[in-house]
């Protein structure tokens, strides 16, 4: 493995930690279904990027963030993102993305690829992960108060609308970092499944977040190894998700 592959593996590990952190909060906010939609929002942008030959991260990121703002507005107006709206946004994103993405790039756009990564690419991704970690750590107390009771949090002085937007943006940033390996269809799976696994295994907040991060890391590491050494494919996303799902299944044995 050369240096550029090492950057990919390192960034994948950092993504796993960010996914564990963000997933923990998303599960407690009961927004996992809406979260799943968010990763699919990247697909139209990814497709356009492949078609017009510019950076997929820029394309994916653009539709991801625009779509996130749309979901945020929806949640604000309706109090929650309704199942119908989630279904429409998910289906529309997938449809538009599948239409504009060139056939030869569709698999990579949907399921990711274990590609070489430049130092610049690694540093950008690492900076994004640091932003995610800083947000969660800095806003930890406000997140806890808002999770416990939005009413009490508002009465205490927490700006819930701004906090929700901040979290959604950080969620999107995490999805963006993972797009490269996981693809638009599976990127949020690594945010959802380790958090669900951790919730089965723990009853305390700190342990919950730690176990979510650890489970995510184990899923990514094991998925990478199986994909590259045994299955010998560069499409690592599905293997990572399968490992993650197996860990969840094992966690069910606890109760």
């Amino acid at each position, binding site marked *: 493995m050369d240096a550029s592959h090492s950057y990919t593996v390192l960034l994948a590990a950092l993504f796993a930690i960010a996914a564990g952190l963000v997933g923990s909060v998303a599960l*407690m906010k009961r927004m996992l279904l809406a979260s799943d939609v968010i990763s699919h929002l990247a697909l139209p942008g990814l497709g356009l990027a492949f078609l017009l030959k510019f950076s997929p991260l820029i394309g994916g990121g653009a539709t991801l963030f625009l779509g996130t703002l749309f979901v945020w507005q929806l949640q604000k107006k309706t109090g929650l993102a309704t199942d119908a709206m989630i279904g429409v946004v998910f289906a529309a994103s997938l449809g538009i993305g599948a239409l504009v993405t060139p056939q030869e790039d569709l698999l990579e756009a949907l399921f990711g690829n274990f590609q070489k990564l430049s130092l610049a690419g690694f540093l950008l991704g690492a900076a994004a992960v640091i932003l995610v970690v800083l947000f969660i750590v800095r806003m*930890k*107390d*406000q997140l*806890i*108060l808002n*999770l*416990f*009771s939005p*009413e*009490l949090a*508002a*009465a*205490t*002085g*927490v700006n819930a609308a701004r906090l929700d937007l901040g979290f959604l943006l950080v969620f999107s940033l995490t999805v963006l970092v993972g797009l490269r390996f996981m693809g638009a269809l599976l990127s949020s799976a690594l945010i959802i499944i380790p958090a669900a696994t951790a*919730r089965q295994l*723990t*009853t*305390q*907040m700190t*342990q*919950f977040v730690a176990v979510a991060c650890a489970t995510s890391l184990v899923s990514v590491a094991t998925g990478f190894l199986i994909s590259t050494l045994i299955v010998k494919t560069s499409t690592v996303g599905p293997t990572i998700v399968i490992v993650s799902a197996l860990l969840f299944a094992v966690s069910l044995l606890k109760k």
Partner: protein
Amino acid sequence: MTDRLLSVRDLRVAFGSRVVLRELNFEVYSGECLAIIGPNGSGKTVLLKALQHLIPYEGEIHWSQEARVGYVPQSVAADRQLPLRVRELLAAKARFLRLADQEIEQVFLELNLSPEFLNAGIGTLSGGQFQKALIAFALLGHPNVLLFDEPTASLDELSEERIYELIHRLQQRSGITVILVSHDLSVVYRYASQVLCLSKGKPCMGPPKEILTPEMLEDLYGAPHKYYRHIEEH
């Protein structure tokens, strides 16, 4: 002369075309216990939320500069499924408000909170214990006004009594002003210095002896006075 802590003028709250509160005017002075009573849907919770500027309203709500408000909502408004211990919840508020450690310890002593209680998960607390945790939460930050929204809803009689004794003790010891929504008229009669009644008609306010008469209550709730035995008790 006691200080005026709160002044409400021409308060109106509407949700779409449904007007919940209209032409509401009242004042609250330091050290008072104001009980808010009224039938379901009369706007009691809405009033508490408007007082904290949590919902849009028309009219004027003026808190004095010295007012520091603590709020204890109905327990149903909180998520008890979170993997959170009581201590972690209280610490989150304390850190957010940048409170010193001594201030947190003071609240623990005031309410006699044991280490077992503090280390318990919020989902494992009984109804009465959970209300106590919410009161501890409200007391962080040294409020001089406490807003309670039906603090004993879904509690058994003994737990109910303990919560009201605790509120009364806080008021007596620290001179805290209390604004309390309660359906329990005997509690209102026992503890309140002023009663504000909300109904579809014009709101009324006065001391318990004037407001909690059989005639007024029948007018307010639309039920005959035989249900209000506290009148005979007091």
